[in-house]
């Protein structure tokens, strides 16, 4: 166990000498103590630096390194695994003021951004230029630096992959304050260990990402979103592998049940999804986006896709063609998490990922275990890539009882996921929340390797201590 120094006036003065953006005491907003999942613990930092440049980050790191002060990097604080929570106090390096889009290089199809640029701002800017930044996590107001640090996935991972597939290069400030660059604006590389890929998904434990060169693609010419209702979830999920088998390549395949749809529609105040079909109640949906190179190409895909749906007992195929219908359907999907937190007092979540063909049997198992433990379970997620978001909820249990049952739930569910060949987190990361389950699923040897890598990058273990692989 490392020992860290606490901030004293002398160190604070040193930090003030290198940064004009230092906050201490009551000037620190209490939001810095938590991310979106305070259930994993909250802790106020002793000092916050709202960094405006790579040089400022570097100067701050030099001071913190010299004095062995823990440093937790933070973007928009929208994480779901405790990654941005300073559980050892110390300094928060808030990179959200570094929110400048630095420019496009359209000959190489990349865009340069500061790490604090919001995902939504980049996505919107790309669209006005006929371009697309494909990674599409549900939380659009997250910073791109955080997206990279957690290898965020999102809805379009089915076709386009995750954030990792779109990072070409980055500027990183190391624990000792040294500024370095990983990667290059090239399409392939065979040039030693990929330090770039080590950084992606490292959750602020190896270095602080300050600038990014991200790959972009030409926006598809035509898109349509499709809502496919089913009588039950198992039938819906069983249809998913059939799309690829029919040579269809949807951008996104999300699954959801009526309970989360109803909850979300109450939250957003309007009805978006059909509830009945030919007089019969709908119980589950697949929400799908198809894209094509032209209207004709898209038309042909919709026809083929509809055929596969009907062959697999879809009740109907609803096609959202107007931009408002498409955006309403996806805005509702993106609001699921907020809708749950609006109605539920106690909740925890499980961001497990398993092989696509196992989802149809996994979800009923999850619901069964939840029922046995008296937890209300809400599931939705990315059916197309096997990443499921399971929410364990209760409005009636005591916090102690909830914790006890919830832990039992996690033990059983993660064990089952590992049995299926799955992994602990599809896209939210490990933080401090899922460390135990990470080690159980990948084994001590692999976590030791991770910790060894961390020690090379961060010999004093000051970067985001107590996270991912840094066991206390």
């Amino acid at each position, binding site marked *: 166990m490392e020992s860290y120094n606490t901030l004293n006036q002398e160190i604070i003065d040193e930090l003030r000498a290198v940064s004009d953006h230092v906050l201490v005491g009551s000037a620190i907003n209490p939001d810095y103590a938590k991310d979106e999942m305070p259930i994993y613990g909250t802790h106020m930092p002793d000092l916050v630096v709202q960094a405006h440049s790579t040089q400022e980050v570097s100067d701050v790191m030099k001071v913190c390194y010299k004095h062995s002060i823990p440093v937790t990097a933070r973007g928009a604080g929208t994480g779901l695994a405790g990654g941005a929570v300073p559980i050892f106090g110390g300094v928060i390096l808030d990179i959200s003021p570094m929110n400048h889009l630095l420019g496009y290089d359209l000959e190489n199809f990349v865009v340069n951004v500061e790490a604090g640029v919001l995902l939504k701002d980049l996505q919107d800017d790309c669209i*006005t230029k006929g371009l697309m930044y494909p990674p599409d996590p549900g939380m659009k107001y997250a910073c791109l630096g955080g997206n990279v640090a957690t290898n965020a996935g999102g809805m379009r991972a089915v076709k386009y992959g995750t954030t990792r597939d779109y990072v070409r290069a980055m500027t990183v400030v190391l624990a000792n304050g040294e500024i370095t660059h990983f990667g290059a604006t090239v399409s392939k590389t065979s040039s030693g260990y990929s330090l770039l890929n080590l950084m992606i998904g490292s959750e602020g434990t190896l270095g602080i990402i300050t600038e990014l060169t991200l790959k972009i693609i030409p926006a598809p010419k035509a898109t349509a979103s499709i809502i496919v209702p089913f009588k039950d979830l198992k039938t819906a999920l069983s249809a998913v592998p059939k799309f690829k088998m029919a040579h269809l390549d949807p951008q996104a395949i999300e699954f959801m049940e009526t309970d989360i749809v109803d909850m979300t529609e109450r939250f957003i105040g309007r009805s978006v999804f059909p509830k009945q079909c030919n007089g019969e109640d709908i119980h589950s949906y697949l929400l799908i986006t198809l894209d094509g190179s032209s209207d004709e190409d898209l038309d042909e895909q919709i026809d083929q896709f509809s055929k596969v749906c009907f062959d697999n007992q879809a009740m109907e195929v609803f096609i959202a063609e107007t931009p408002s219908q498409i955006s309403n359907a996806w805005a509702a999907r993106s609001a699921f998490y907020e809708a749950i937190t609006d109605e539920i007092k106690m909740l925890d979540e499980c961001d497990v990922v398993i092989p696509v063909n196992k989802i149809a049997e996994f979800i009923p198992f999850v619901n069964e275990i939840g029922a046995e433990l008296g937890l209300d379970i809400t599931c939705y997620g990315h059916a197309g890539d096997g990443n499921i978001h399971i929410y364990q909820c209760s409005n009636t249990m005591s916090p102690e009882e909830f914790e006890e049952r919830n832990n039992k739930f996690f033990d059983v569910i993660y064990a089952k996921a590992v049995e299926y060949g799955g992994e602990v987190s599809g896209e939210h990361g490990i933080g401090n929340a899922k460390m135990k389950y990470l080690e159980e699923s990948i084994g001590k040897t692999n976590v030791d390797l991770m910790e060894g890598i961390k020690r090379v990058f961060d010999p004093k273990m000051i970067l985001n201590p107590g996270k991912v692989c840094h066991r206390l």
Partner: protein
Amino acid sequence: MNMNICVCIKQVPDTNRIKIDPVTNTLVRKGVPSIINPFDTYAVEMAAKLKEEYGGKVVVISMGPPQASKALKVCLSVGADEAYLISDRAFGGSDTLATGYILAGAIKKIEELEDLKFDLIFCGKQAIDGDTAQVGPQIAEQLGLAQATYALDVSCTNDHTIVKREVDGGYDTVLVQTPAVVTVVHTDQMPRYATYSTRSEAKKKQVHVLSSAELSELDLAQCGLSGSPTRVVNTYTPSVQKLGIMIEGSSTTELVDKLVGILDDKRLL
């Protein structure tokens, strides 16, 4: 009781995706997709609901270039029975007055062709590219019909239409003599989705095209750019004013003093 309804729609650039050139003050339309004017989609939905309730026919019409037939096809997949595109170079550049004149002429012609009388003519309350909200009322004037604007809901009796209208702070309900022109706002009734089968049926249907040749009763001197009295003298982007002042200080007294000082400077006290 059958209700025959004509719905006028317009294909517009998606203004959510449009920017204004700061130098020329004109819309940068490059790469901006065309969509059905959102208010019109609610008008189509209202017509489709009334057809389900009372029976009858929904005919959707649009004046525009040939590519506007794509928007009409979408309407055919969400409840419209027939679609007419009013398209002719002679109609290009029409202002709202000329557009109202041409659409009114087209509606009369379509009644002949379809062998029916429209009980209701629906429009969206305004198009999001021009925002004038004039074309619906002008059609009513041209046809000599009653009109009700800003409709949230419509129900019908034998010879009257009851319209729930959106007004500031609530709604009012008016009774208009049928036939009538009704312009529609965003209602609670989300426009329906096309289904695979309605979309397939729509693809098979033809969009009828009416040019000045078919609409021979129109006086071309009242159509197009030359028939439009409106002159655009100037367009400009309203300047954005930054709102909100953050007052900083270490104590409440200091903050209040600063606030009072600012208000005093602006002669607001």
